[in-house]
C-alpha cells in the first residue's frame, strides 16, 4: 500500500475508534438523573411519532401538537388523571342556569401566566372571543376542527369555509375579576366535557397580542399559516411546564414552571421535558433500549413481548377508548337486508380474531363505543359466533348460498383498533366463506384512497374504527349515526331522533338512559359489526413512575418521576 493511503486508512480506523468510545463518559452523567426526592432535577426524553404542527390549541387537531400543548396550557376544567371524569382546573366550581344556556365559572385567583400576566376573567373572555371571531382560513375545518365540532360556526361565518353556519357560542361575559359566564344559544350537554379539551386552553392575552397570534396569511394555494411567532416561539400558558426551545423536526424542550399554582399536585421530579420526533416504530424501540429516550407512545403489538421481557423496561396500557368495526353499507345490496347483516354477524368469530391479533390488548366489542364511556348498554342484542345459524337465517330469507358480497380492508396502516388490518380481514373472510358467503376482496392504501372510498360509499363491507376525542357518547355513536352518511348508506329516523334527543338532554341521568336506549336501537338495526376495543400501550424505562395513561391521551408529565440517577 502506498504511504498516503496507508496513513489515511490508519487515520480512518483511529477516528472511528475515537468517535465510538469517546462520547461515553460525557453522557452517562446527564442521563435521566433525579436524585433527591422532591427536587425537580430529572430530564425525561419522550419519543413522539411526529413534530407538533403549532403550539396553539385553537389551531390543531393532531395528537402530537395536543400532547405538547397539554403540558404548557390549561383550561377551565380537565379530566381526572387516567379517566374521563371532569374535574376543576383553572375554574374551582361552576353553575348552570336552569335552561342550560348560561355556564358560570368561578376562577382560581392565584394563577399567573408564564410571562407573569395575571390569569383572570378577562383572560378567559379574551381567548373565547379570539376563537369566536376567527375569520377567513381560520374557519377552515382542518384549522379549527374542535371549535367547529363543539360550537359550530363563528361570529361571521364565511359560507365558503365549510364551517357550519350556525354557532352555538353566544358570548363570554366577565362577571367580576374571577367569575366568568359562557352563554350558549342552545343547551348542550357535552359542553362541560368539551371544555376539558386541550383545544380550549388559555394563552396569555399579552403574548397572543405581542406575538401576533391572530396574524395569518393565506398563500396562493389557499393554505392558511399563522405568521406570528406565538405558536412556534412564544406559547405562553399557565401549565406546569414552560416552553424553552423548539428545533424543528429535532426536539421540543420544556422546563418546569417554578411558579406553578398547582405545585402541590405536581408530584413529579422532571425539570426538563423533551419531546423528540422519531417516525419509525422500530427506531423508537431501539432508542428506548439504548436509553436515548425514556419513553414512547404507540407501541406496536409485535414489540410488546420484547418490552415486557426486558427488566429495564415497562409497558403501560391505556384504557380502551376506541372501537374497531366492520361497516356495512346498506346502499349496496344485499346489505340493505337486515337478515344478511345478521348472518354476517353470526358468521364471524370475533373472539378468535381478537385473541389472535391483539397480543392480549383487545376485548370483543358488543356495541359502537367502549365500556368506559357512559351510556354503554349492557343489554344490547348480541350476535354469537354460530355459522349454522347464519346459514339458516340466509336460507329462511330465501337466499341461494353462497351469497355474494364485497369486503374491503386498508393497506399501509396500523391503527390502535387494527394493528394489521390484513390479518383481521383474512380471518374474517375465511369465516364468511366457510359459512355461506362468497367474498370479493378489495383493498386500497389507507390514506387517502381507502378512506375516500369508504366516505363516498364505494365499499359494501369494510374494516374501520374510531378513537374517541373526549369522554362523551356523542363522540362515538353521535359521530357515526346521528345523520345520514354515504359510508353507512341508511336513513333510519328512529336512530337519528334518539341520538338528537340524547345529545341535547341536560339531565345527566336521563341522558345516560337515552344513550343506552340508542345503543340498543343501533345494535338491533345492526348497521355494522363492532368487534374490538383495544388498550393501546406505551413503553417506558423501568425507573419512570407516576405516568397515568388516559383514555383520551390527556397525560400530564408533571406527575411523572424519574427515579434514581444513572
Amino acid at each position: 500500500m502506498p504511504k498516503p493511503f496507508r496513513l489515511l486508512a490508519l487515520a480512518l480506523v483511529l477516528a472511528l475508534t475515537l468517535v465510538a468510545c469517546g462520547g461515553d463518559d460525557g453522557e452517562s452523567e446527564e442521563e435521566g438523573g433525579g436524585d433527591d426526592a422532591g427536587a425537580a432535577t430529572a430530564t425525561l426524553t419522550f419519543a413522539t411519532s411526529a413534530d407538533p404542527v403549532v403550539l396553539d390549541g385553537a389551531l390543531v387537531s393532531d395528537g402530537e401538537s395536543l400532547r405538547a400543548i397539554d403540558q404548557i396550557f390549561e383550561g377551565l376544567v380537565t379530566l381526572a388523571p387516567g379517566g374521563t371524569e371532569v374535574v376543576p382546573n383553572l375554574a374551582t366550581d361552576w353553575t348552570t342556569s336552569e335552561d342550560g344556556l348560561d355556564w358560570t365559572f368561578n376562577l382560581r385567583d392565584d394563577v399567573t401566566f408564564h410571562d407573569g400576566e395575571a390569569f383572570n376573567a378577562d383572560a378567559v373572555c379574551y381567548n373565547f372571543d379570539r376563537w369566536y371571531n376567527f375569520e377567513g382560513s381560520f374557519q377552515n375545518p382542518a384549522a379549527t376542527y374542535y371549535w367547529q365540532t363543539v360550537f359550530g360556526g363563528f361570529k361571521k361565518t364565511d359560507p365558503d369555509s365549510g364551517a357550519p353556519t350556525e354557532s352555538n357560542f353566544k358570548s363570554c361575559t366577565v362577571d367580576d375579576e374571577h367569575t366568568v359566564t359562557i352563554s350558549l344559544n342552545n343547551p348542550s350537554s357535552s359542553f362541560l366535557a368539551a371544555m376539558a379539551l386541550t383545544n380550549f386552553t388559555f394563552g396569555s392575552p399579552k403574548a397572543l397580542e405581542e406575538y401576533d397570534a391572530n396574524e395569518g396569511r393565506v398563500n396562493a394555494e389557499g393554505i392558511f399559516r399563522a405568521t406570528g411567532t406565538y405558536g412556534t416561539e412564544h406559547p405562553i400558558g399557565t401549565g406546569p411546564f414552560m416552553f424553552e426551545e423548539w428545533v424543528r423536526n429535532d426536539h421540543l424542550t420544556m422546563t418546569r414552571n417554578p411558579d406553578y399554582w398547582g405545585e402541590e399536585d405536581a408530584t413529579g421530579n422532571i425539570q426538563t421535558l423533551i419531546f423528540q420526533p422519531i417516525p419509525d416504530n422500530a427506531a423508537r424501540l431501539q432508542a428506548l433500549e439504548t436509553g436515548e429516550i425514556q419513553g414512547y407512545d404507540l407501541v406496536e403489538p409485535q414489540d410488546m413481548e420484547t418490552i415486557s421481557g426486558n427488566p429495564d423496561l415497562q409497558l403501560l396500557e391505556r384504557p380502551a377508548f376506541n372501537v374497531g368495526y366492520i361497516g356495512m353499507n346498506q346502499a349496496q345490496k344485499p346489505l340493505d337486508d337486515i337478515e344478511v347483516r345478521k348472518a354476517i354477524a353470526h358468521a364471524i368469530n370475533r373472539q378468535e380474531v381478537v385473541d389472535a391479533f391483539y397480543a392480549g390488548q383487545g376485548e370483543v366489542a358488543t356495541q359502537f363505543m367502549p365500556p368506559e364511556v357512559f351510556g354503554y348498554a349492557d343489554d344490547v342484542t348480541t350476535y354469537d359466533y354460530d355459522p349454522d345459524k347464519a346459514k339458516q337465517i340466509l336460507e329462511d330469507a330465501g337466499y341461494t348460498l353462497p351469497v355474494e358480497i364485497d369486503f374491503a380492508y386498508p393497506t399501509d396502516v396500523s391503527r390502535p383498533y387494527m394493528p394489521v388490518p390484513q390479518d383481521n380481514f383474512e380471518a374474517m373472510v375465511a369465516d364468511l366463506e366457510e359459512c355461506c358467503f362468497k367474498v370479493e376482496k378489495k383493498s386500497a392504501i389507507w390514506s387517502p384512497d381507502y378512506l375516500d372510498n369508504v366516505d363516498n360509499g364505494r365499499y359494501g363491507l369494510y374494516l374501520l374504527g374510531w378513537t374517541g376525542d373526549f369522554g362523551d357518547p356523542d363522540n362515538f355513536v353521535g359521530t357515526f349515526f346521528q345523520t345520514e352518511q354515504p359510508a353507512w348508506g341508511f336513513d333510519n329516523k328512529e336512530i337519528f331522533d334518539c341520538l338528537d334527543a340524547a345529545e341535547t338532554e341536560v339531565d345527566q341521568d336521563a341522558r345516560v338512559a337515552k344513550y343506552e336506549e340508542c345503543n340498543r336501537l343501533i345494535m338491533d338495526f345492526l348497521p355494522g359489526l363492532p368487534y374490538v376495543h383495544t388498550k393501546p400501550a406505551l413503553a417506558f424505562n423501568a425507573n419512570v413512575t407516576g405516568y397515568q395513561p388516559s383514555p383520551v391521551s390527556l397525560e400530564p408529565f408533571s406527575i411523572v418521576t424519574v427515579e434514581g440517577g444513572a
Partner: protein
Amino acid sequence: MLRYVVRRLVLLVPILIGLSILVFVFVRSLPGGPAIALLGERATQESVEAIERELGLDKPVHEQYLAYAGNLLSGDLGASIQTRRPVVDELKDRFPATIELGFAAMLFAILAGVPLGYVAAKRYQGFLDQSSLVLSLIGISFPIFFLALILKYVFAVKLGWLPSIGRLDVTRTLEHPTGFYTLDALIAGDFPAFMDAVRHLVLPAIALGTIPLAIVARITRAATLDVLSEDYVRTARAKGLAPSVVDRRHVMRNALLPVVTIVGLQTGLLLTGAILTERVFAWPGLGTMIINAISFRDYAVLQGGLVFFALIIVLVNLLVDVSYAFLNPRIRYR
C-alpha cells in the same frame, strides 16, 4: 471553460421546467388527495370539498400548474398542508441535515473505497483482491434499512458505543447558524458538541455509504488495473522513477478520473438511499420529509422536495464534468 459552465447553467432552466411539470403531474396522479389525508377518519364530504376548494384543488390541473409556476418564479414553492409552513422554510431547515449525512457517507465511501480498490488492484488476483470483491458484492446487495438495523442493534443497543437516533444529544443546546451541526459546533467552539455530532453521524453514514463504497472500490480497482498496464507507466518505471512517484504521479491521478465520475453519479443514489436511512435513524432531513409528504399527499412539499433533489443531482453532475478538466488537462470544454 466559463462559457461552458454558463451554458450548462442556462440549460438548467428548461430542464427544471420540464422536471417541475413531470413532478407536478406525477404527484397529482397519486390516488386520493390531501384533504382526506389530513382529516383521516374524521373526513366528511363537506369538509373534504371545503378543503379542496380552499387549496384550489377543484380547478383543472393546467390551471393549478400555471399558478404554481407563477409562484415558483417569485421563489414561492407553496406551503405544506400538514405543517402549514412555507416549503422553502422546510427545505432550508432540512437540507443541511441531508447534505451533512450525504457528505459523511461519501467521505466514508471514498476514504475506505479508494484505498481498498487500489490495494486490490496492486494485489491483483491475490487474497486481498478476492476478499475485497466478495465484500463489495455483499455491500452492493445488502438492503440499506437492514444494514441500518443491524448496525444499530450491534453498536447502539448491544455495545452502547454510538447513538441510534437523531443528529445531536437532545439535552445539548447549540445555536444553528448553518444547520450543519458539525460546523455549528465548530463555530460555537464547542468541541464536545462537535464530537457528539460526529458520533451521531457514524452509523447512518456507514449505512448510507456502504453501497457507494463497494462501487467506488470496484471502479478504483478496475481503473487502476487499466492504468497499470499502460505504456507510460512502464516507461516511467523503466526510466527509473521511484515506485511511489510512479504511483502518485502517473497511476493514481489517471485512475481517479472514472472514480470522480462514479462519485458524481452516486450522489443520486445517495439521495434515494437517504430516504430510507433517514427514517430508520430519525434523521430530520429531506428523506424523512418526502416520506411524510407522500403519506400526507402534501403536494407542495413533495414537488419542492423532488425538484430540489433533481436540482442537486444535475448540479453535482455539472461539477463532475467541470472537475474532469482539472484532473485531466487534455479535456477542454468549449
